[in-house]
Structures are given as C-alpha cells and as structure tokens.
C-alpha cells in the first residue's frame, strides 16, 4: 500500500528490501509464460533461503527457486512445465528427497485463496476437491500450523451448505485466504507510480498482486502515465497496491511475454537436461545465475541472435514459426 508518485528502483534493492529469509512469497505467471524470472534469478543470487512459496502452476520460476535451495515450504497445485517438463525436475527431486515440505491444492483453490486475500475475507467456497485426498491429506502438521501465525489452523474446511440445497449444492470446501508478504509479477507496461498493463492472459497475477502486503512489479517498458491513462479499461491493478517498479527488459526470459517475446525452447530444453543431474544443475546455477551479476549479463550469455529468434511477431504476439522441438 503506497500512494507515492515515483516507485522506480532497481532489482537488487527491491529484492533485498522486500524479500528476506523465511518470507512468504508468490510469483506471477504460469508455467512457460510471464514468470518474473529476472526477480527469481536475483533472489537466487542473493541466496535468500527458507522461503514459504505459494504457487498454482508457476512452472519455471518455482522450479528454479527450489533447485537453488531457496524454498523451505511450498503450497502448490501443479509442478509441471508444459511439454518441457511433465513434472518439473528439481521440484520432483526435492519432493522425493524430502528436501521441502509440500502441501497440495488445485489451481482453482490456489486462485481462490489469493482472491480471498485480495477481497479481505478469510476464505472462499468451492465444490472442488470434495471426496478427494486434497481434502484428506495435509502437508503441514497441526503443530506447524499452530507455530506459524502466518498459516491458518486448517488446510481447508468442508461445510454443509447453510442455505439448504441452494444452487443444488449440499456441501462446500472453504479454502483459507493467502496474504503473501510479497508478490512479484512481471508485466508488459508500467508507469513510475505503478499503473500497469498486462497483455494477453492475466493468469492469477491480479489476485496474487492484490493479496500481498508488498508488491514488486518488473516491466518490459517503463511508460508515461499519460499513455496508460488514455485507456484505463486496459489497466489491471490499482497503483496503490504497488510498492516497487523495476524496469527489466526481457524480465520474463526464458519464459514468454506476450507481444514482446516467446519462451526460449533452447533454454528450456537445456535447463531440463541440466536439471536431471545434481552436479550438472550446479554447473547451470554457477554459469547462468551466480556467474552473472544481473539479468542483463545473463541475457548477454544467451546473445542477441537467440533473443532475436524469439522476438514476437507483431501480428500474433509470439514468434510465429519458431522451431520449438
């Protein structure tokens, strides 16, 4: 919550100011699209650990945070990354090794939980997951829940419909609100005050943003206020939710950013190869993340030619005809 006129800062400062060891965080995007990767890499560089991460299907960003050892606890719906990883590889490894504590929800439930936080209500109802193990098996123990004031006492609550059989519904699952300490999203356009515009699908970014105590926005373009205010219908989040604005071109790379660039299939395929082996994954981290001091340097490793190959076709918004094998 911040009404000031100028929130522009750099990524190092934004991450060190708002993300700390043990912070409860969420990141925007979905699998291979619009993950705030520059911010993810900066968290890894700053070696922030023991994060409590709330994810629906954030894919690439989640897997890299887990792989780099930043995550202690994870509430998640889906740890996959489209065709590039039917199950995210470092996520799978960490789960099987017991290296992180995981609690499962569905995608809609995670979205409703962010929405509840955004709306300021303690829960929202759904019929999803009645009769399943999502309602029966809890990843976090009652003790752990009691010890952490940032966690609700119950994973979820099943309730009879208090309005009888209204809407042909006998029971509902109530899922508890999430209010992350910080949410980080990457958007196409933002002004210095935080008025912003996402293009293409918004996933759950809007709910994640509004539910957070602090909101960091990275953007492809830092634009004039007048440009965004000419079409206010297309802006998605009240600017006073925004605490930091960071201009990071290619800030979602190697995931896609609609109308700007596509995902990089070479990077994602190579990542999958690195991720399969602990030693090679360390090489990956050393070369691409610890070995670069910021996102610009990481992009330099990739080179202009690769970046040009994924440039969005102005007609379709993605790299039409890109070789994606």
């Amino acid at each position: 919550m911040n009404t000031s006129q100028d929130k522009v800062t750099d990524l190092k400062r934004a991450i060190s100011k708002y993300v700390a060891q043990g912070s409860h965080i969420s990141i925007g995007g979905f699998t291979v699209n619009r993950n705030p990767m520059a911010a993810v890499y900066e968290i890894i560089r700053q070696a922030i650990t023991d994060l409590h991460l709330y994810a629906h299907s954030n894919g690439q960003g989640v897997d890299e945070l887990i792989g780099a050892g930043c995550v202690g606890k994870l509430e998640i719906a889906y740890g996959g990354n489209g065709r590039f990883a039917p199950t995210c590889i470092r996520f799978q490894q960490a789960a099987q090794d017991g290296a992180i504590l995981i609690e499962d929800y569905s995608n809609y439930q995670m979205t409703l939980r962010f929405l509840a936080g955004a709306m300021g209500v303690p829960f929202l109802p759904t019929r999803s997951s009645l009769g399943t193990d999502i309602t029966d098996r809890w990843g976090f123990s009652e003790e752990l829940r009691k010890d952490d004031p940032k966690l609700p006492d119950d994973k979820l609550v099943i309730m009879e419909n208090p309005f009888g059989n209204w809407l042909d519904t006998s029971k509902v699952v109530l899922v508890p609100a999430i209010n992350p300490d910080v949410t980080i999203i990457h958007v196409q356009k933002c002004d210095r005050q935080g008025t912003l515009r996402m293009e293409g699908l918004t996933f759950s970014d809007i709910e994640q943003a509004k539910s957070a105590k602090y909101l960091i926005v990275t953007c492809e373009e830092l634009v004039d206020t007048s440009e965004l205010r000419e079409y206010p219908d297309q802006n998605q989040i009240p600017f006073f939710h925004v605490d930091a604005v960071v201009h990071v071109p290619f800030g979602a790379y190697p995931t896609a950013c609609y109308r700007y660039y596509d995902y990089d299939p070479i990077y994602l395929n190579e990542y999958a190869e690195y991720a399969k082996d602990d030693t090679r994954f360390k090489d990956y981290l050393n070369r691409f993340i610890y070995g670069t001091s910021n996102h610009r340097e990481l992009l330099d490793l990739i080179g202009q030619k690769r970046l040009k190959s994924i440039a969005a076709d102005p007609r379709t918004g993605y790299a039409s005809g890109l070789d994606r094998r």
Partner: protein
Amino acid sequence: MTKKKMKFDYSPREMMAIVAAREIKDGDIVFCGTGVSMLAAMAAKHISAPESVIIFETGAIDPKLEEIPLAVSDSRIMYGSSMNSGLADAFAIMQNQSTGQHVVGILGAAQIDMFGNLNSTTIGNYVNPTVRFPGSGGACDVASFVGKTIIFMQQEKRRFVTKLDYLTSPGWLDGPRGREKEGLSKGGPVAVITNMATMRFDENTKEMYLDGYYNGITPKKILANMGFGIDISRAHEIPPPSADELRILREVCDPQRLILG
C-alpha cells in the same frame, strides 16, 4: 520404429487423439490440457464439431490456435481468441450452473481406478513419496465441476490400479451415489482412452467396462495390461482413423509433429 509412416498407417497417439475427437459434439465447451488432449480438441473443431468451443484454465476462450501450444499458458492461445482472462474466470465457467454441465474436460493421470478416479500427485507415502508427479493443476477442479470428462491413459498394469496412492481428481468415487454423497456435480468420467482401447462406465454400477479396442489389439491383451478386471462382453472394434481425420490431424493440427512426435 521409424517415424515415417505409410499413408494409412497411424500411431497409437494419433488413434487416441482421433478417438477422443469423436467424443466431442457441437455445443460442447472443451477444456483442454497440454499434449494429445489439445490435439483432440483441435481435431474435433476441424472435423466434426465446428460449433464446439475450446477453453483453457488459464483464461483463453476459443483461441485461433494457428500453431499448436506446448503449454496451457503458451502465447499461442492468446492470439485471436474471443476473450483473454485468467484462472478465476476460467474455472468459474466450469463451476457455473448454466455453462459447467456443457463442459467436456480432457484429463490425463498417472493412475486410474475402476471408478475413473485419478492420481496425478504421488506414488508411495504422501509426505515422503517414492515418485512425485506434478499434482492436480486444474484437473481436480475440472473433474469436480464439469458435465463430462474424457481420460487419456497409457494401457499399463501399474496405471490401472485397484487402489490409488492418492485421489487427486474425482471420478465416480465409490460408485453410483459417490459424487452425490460428497456434494460433487452430476457429471463425471464418460470415457477412458488408451493406446489400445476405450473404456466406459456402466450406467448402473459406474464400474469401468471395455467398450472398444483398436485394430490388432485383443480384449485379452488389454486385460493383461490392467491391474483389475473389467467386463469385456460389450466390446467392439473401433473403426480406424479415416484418411480425412488423419490428414487434418497431421496437416492442420500438428504439422511440426510437436505433439504427435
């Protein structure tokens, strides 16, 4: 096995996509995941159900799909759509009382039981799993809400199990009254499509039975690749893909063979 195929030869994956496409009718709203389910939905729209509508859990309604998406967040589903929104809106369509029962969801999983319940989460103990899969994603939501689900499976003993290690997405739960008892929607799984066969669920018992088998596959072989027995008395051979079906699938839907392989 060579990837070059004779004109009327076809892979199991192609057969699966076409058999699923045949399940989709005009007026259906098709919920699509990644991979072969997306191909099936695209094929249906081009072949038999031009007035079906493809939606994605990420919020895209009826996109143009000029190129095949590799994930449900692929920018290729944002182009030429009727509307772009987000997850909250997409799942509301499926839970909504007017639209939800018209949605056909196409799902996959690691395990399935005889009532069509699915596991896509863990094998072994939940907290310390032997194998971890991606988890529900939107699958549990779709399976909870919509009118019909179609399930893609590989025909393997370890996948067709008597008891799931984790019930991620509800099928008919424990039988005909299972969903009603728990408070789920009237809908449920209608077909399981594998690389060998199509199973359906008995109207009265909601138990899986063999409905059809592919050319060259016997019911016996199918049973040998399942961890539980099913009724095979109603089974018939499924017509192979027509030349037209194959042409559309290969030339229109996935010319780069990104999904077909």
